[in-house]
């Protein structure tokens, strides 16, 4: 799993690729909380286009990001979810809680 950050306007986009599971989900959590809590970025956009699989520990990291964004008054947006990622959020009844967009343009413009 690889994760990198870039700035677009006032947003930070985190590009993630590979699989997010128990072996590496703490890295996702750490990256999210660094942007949302430490840097105080007003909008964090998580690009999941390159993510093939995400497990419950990865979902837990996303929930932590969501909670951190609510606490800090910032926005946390997802895009590029494949069927597997949508299914795991849906079965966890979390899909409607997240702002989910199809692509980066929509996520930035939202």
């Amino acid at each position, binding site marked *: 799993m690889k994760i990198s950050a870039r700035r677009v306007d006032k947003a930070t986009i985190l590009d993630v690729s590979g699989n997010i599971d128990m*072996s590496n989900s703490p890295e996702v959590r750490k990256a999210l909380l660094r942007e949302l809590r430490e840097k105080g970025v007003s909008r964090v956009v998580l690009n999941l286009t390159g993510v093939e699989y995400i497990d*419950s520990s990865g979902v*837990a990291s996303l*929930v932590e990001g969501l909670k951190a964004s609510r606490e800090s008054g910032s926005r946390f947006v997802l895009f590029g979810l494949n*069927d597997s990622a949508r*299914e795991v959020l849906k*079965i*966890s009844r979390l899909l409607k809680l997240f702002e989910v967009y199809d692509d980066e343009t929509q996520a930035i413009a939202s």
Partner: protein
Amino acid sequence: MNPIAAKQPRDMKKSSKLSRSFLLKLELRSHPTLLCVIRGALGPLMEMLGFSPEHSREIIRAVDEAVSNIMRHSYQGRPDQPIEVYCSRLQRRTNGETEQGVEILLFDCGPAVDTTKLEARPLDEVRPGGLGLHIIRGSMDTVQYKRAGRLNRLRLVKFARSSKGGCGSAEEKPS
């Protein structure tokens, strides 16, 4: 002999009568980096058994979460403990139709699971963690935990709801 095979109680060895449909055994250590290996092995197997891509993802997700739970809870994060995964093909007849299915047995040598803690948490509360069991139950037709001698055994079953599929013609019913 591997540690789990050595500890297998008699009734579990007897269950190898199901070997008519036995397909795959995976032996691994409890290192989280091996989760991707399990997922990688199960994908083609589910395709071979005739599962739809959606059902395949559900099965893989359930097994991945179950193995993660073993690593996290049964072995408390120790990365060198044994886990075994057995996959068998199942067939059953319902209303004159043949359903193809898969049975996956997971064994570990951790302490007995407190079955009172096997309730999935309510999903109303938005908080991280505690989703694994809910995902497993939501993905499979059957989820059964059993303490078998000194082993924990988790049995997962899913049927494809289709007469298409598979390999061989052995006909068995889930135990």
